[in-house]
């Protein structure tokens, strides 16, 4: 069965430091991959997506992610974290069957220290 794993439930980084959030998926074919961000009390906002082509994708707010098929990973990165990046981040993969459904990971909560 398809699944998405975000190994880190909670991460704390200092403001200005680099960030990498991990995401691993299980899927037989080339996946559609997404990262969403959720600020406290808000809905989810799409950060970036990978459908095909260049394995390094750029998103909003200075985020990028790299698709690595050999590692079944789609890690999210940012070179320099801002206090406003504190939020919960979700990785998701498109479900098989062309249904438009997404399967989400459990989420990673990012705390930013001043």
């Amino acid at each position: 069965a398809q699944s998405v794993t975000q190994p880190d439930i909670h991460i704390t980084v200092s403001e200005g430091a680099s960030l990498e959030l991990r995401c691993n998926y299980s899927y037989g074919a080339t996946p559609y991959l997404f990262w969403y961000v959720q600020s406290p009390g808000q809905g989810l906002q799409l950060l970036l997506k990978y459908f095909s082509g260049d394995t390094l994708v750029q998103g909003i707010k200075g985020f990028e992610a790299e698709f690595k098929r050999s590692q079944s990973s789609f890690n999210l990165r940012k070179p320099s974290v801002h206090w406003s990046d504190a939020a919960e981040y979700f990785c998701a993969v498109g479900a098989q069957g062309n249904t438009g459904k997404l399967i989400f990971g459990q989420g990673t909560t990012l705390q930013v220290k001043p």
Partner: protein
Amino acid sequence: DAGITQSPRHKVTETGTPVTLRCHQTENHRYMYWYRQDPGHGLRLIHYSYGVKDTDKGEVSDGYSVSRSKTEDFLLTLESATSSQTSVYFCAISGRQGNYEQYFGPGTRLTVT
């Protein structure tokens, strides 16, 4: 931002009472989804719709029903609310079949006492 609203935004209800949550979109998107969000579980799909009167179950559909009589509205009903249905409920929309790119509403926090 996608034009998606959810109502109510907060609700407290008692065990055994029926509850209906509404999702309204102004984007004329074909696909609509209901998720629940619980700590440690991420988002889990309850039901989804691929057109007016066309709906299907997600992974956690027990105890929930949905209806979609108009493109813009997708209703989620808890026929007899239980404490295990205390959660935050999100609606999402998607425009194209197989596109997978979903846009989310602000959520409804439901507490069942």
